[in-house]
């Protein structure tokens, strides 16, 4: 009898878990992102504090420039999201320039198999000033910051309002996950 109850209980638990994963997991995941393997949905609840190198622009707007800051997140995705929020907040040193519009909101962040998807709201596109190099620096401030601070982050894809986009401001290809370009610290692409 006790065994039966246990089995019934387990079954109930499992169906609730499957339903929850389906209902909530699928509902917020942007299209085009692979569904993580079972177990990956459970957040690692340990708060993480990291000192990270934030990639902003230098005062000339030609190169990326690093500012160190301590950031805390509740789990991996949360930490990545808060780091991007720090980028949006902008540099403290007046000798550096912001790379993302101050009104940008981080919608969600996903991590799977070395790739981070950063889903930003439309302000990142609508409030971006434009300009080819300003766009390069916007994209790679996000990509470099995540890929250079975390060894298990290989590439980063920026989504806007949950969708993949060809570009952010009309010049630079962001349709695929991108790897970091540290050469931008010297103001060069190559």
């Amino acid at each position, binding site marked *: 009898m006790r065994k039966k109850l246990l089995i019934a209980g387990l079954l109930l638990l499992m169906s609730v878990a499957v339903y929850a994963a389906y209902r909530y997991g699928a509902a917020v995941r942007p299209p085009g992102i692979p569904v993580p393997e079972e177990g990956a949905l459970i957040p690692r609840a340990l708060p993480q504090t990291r000192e990270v190198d934030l990639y902003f*622009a230098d*005062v*000339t*707007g*030609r190169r990326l420039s690093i500012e160190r800051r301590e950031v805390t997140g509740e789990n991996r995705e949360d930490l990545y999201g808060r780091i991007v929020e720090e980028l949006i907040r902008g540099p403290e040193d007046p000798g550096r*320039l*912001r*790379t993302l519009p101050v009104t940008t909101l981080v919608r969600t962040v996903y991590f799977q198999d070395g790739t981070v998807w950063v889903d930003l709201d439309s302000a990142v596109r609508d409030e971006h*000033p*434009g*300009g*080819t*190099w*300003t766009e*390069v620096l916007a994209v*790679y401030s996000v*990509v470099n910051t995540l890929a250079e601070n975390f060894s298990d982050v*290989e*590439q980063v894809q920026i989504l806007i309002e949950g969708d993949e986009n*060809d*570009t952010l401001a*009309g*010049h*630079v*290809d962001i349709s*695929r*996950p*991108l*790897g*970091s*370009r*540290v050469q931008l610290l010297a103001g*060069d*692409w*190559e």
Partner: protein
Amino acid sequence: MKDERPRVRRARIFLKVLAFATAGSLLLSFGSFATASEIRVQMPGTGDGASGSLTVRSGMVDLASIMKVFNLRSSLDLMGDRLDLVGDSGSCRLLVGSPLVLSRGLFTVLSGPVQSLGGKFVIPHDFLTKALPGLTGRSFDLDDDGSTLVVGPGNTGGFSGQRPEELGRFASFIRRDQYVPEEILREEPKGLSVVVLDPGHGGRSLGAQGSTGTLEKTLVLSVAEKLKTRLEEELDLKVVLTRTADYFVGLKERTAIANNNGAELFLSIHANATFRKEIEGFETYYLSFKSSDKKAVKYAEIENQALGVKGGADEEALLEAILWDMAQTSFINESREVASIIQRSLVHDLRGSDRGVRQAPLAVLMGARMPAVLVEIGFISNPEQELRLNRESHQEEIARSLYRAIETYHRKLLRGEIQRSRP
């Protein structure tokens, strides 16, 4: 460099060996094909009689004549870089400018690239023995002196090739400067005849906006129109605009317009902006073919070649990577040259800060099969510059400066001072 992992380095060595081998076999065969010669096509059941003939020039055969003799149909894609051939028993895809032939997920590599010459396609003669069997279902043998192509009876041929993951990204590297048709070598230096100007953004894509409401899309169209008039009137060039009013044009469409018009120069005109309003000056860009896309780099790691493990290299993605690589890389030197002429001209004529000629992974320059440059004609985010950019007379000055730069490039080409890249 992070990218230079040992596997990649090994792959590069392999590539060099492959390139040498190709060049070697090319040289050997070049002797017999250096001048125009005829290949008689001998169909089964016709005895010694010929059923047709193909003219071989410098190892290249006119594709139209092959299609006629073997009853093939073809279609060219919008971008003008993928050519599909269909025969009675199969089909294949050719990449213009590449030695690759793709059929049913397999690749084979010809001894040189398929080339587009004055609207005609020419293809290395080994296409006859390597790819025709798959299209026609027959076997093909070229006799020892290369003068007769003996065609086998039906159902004797098929397409044999390698899987994409076996090939890696090598194919895109071994293509250049092989089988240069003699008519090209003998060609007199020629100037420009067709230029495509690309006013950035348009329609829902506003581009940068100035603090008093100046729109990049409006400004750059005005400059492009002024430049077009000058080029037509003073240099008698054919000039095509990628958009002639305020409507949206996709980035790929813009280079497609240039490719399809046979343009010899693609100039994308933009206005600049940053988060700091004091910044001013000029920037000119050409494409960087260094992708930061890790997947593209992975194609170069073909250590699985021998084992054939890990299938699933996505064929379309590979094609994209190859085409991406190919289209602009052959023109990169010329693009750099044009970019620096334009940058010098603007800085000199309009006395703005020289913010440099730069390379960047610009979506709008990818896929252009001609020298391609993007110019930023000033910072709309700088209130002072915005004011000036709004003035008709200043737009005219920019157009004149860009005109002078294009004229300089045109004259250099005419004098043979710039070696023209071959598509």
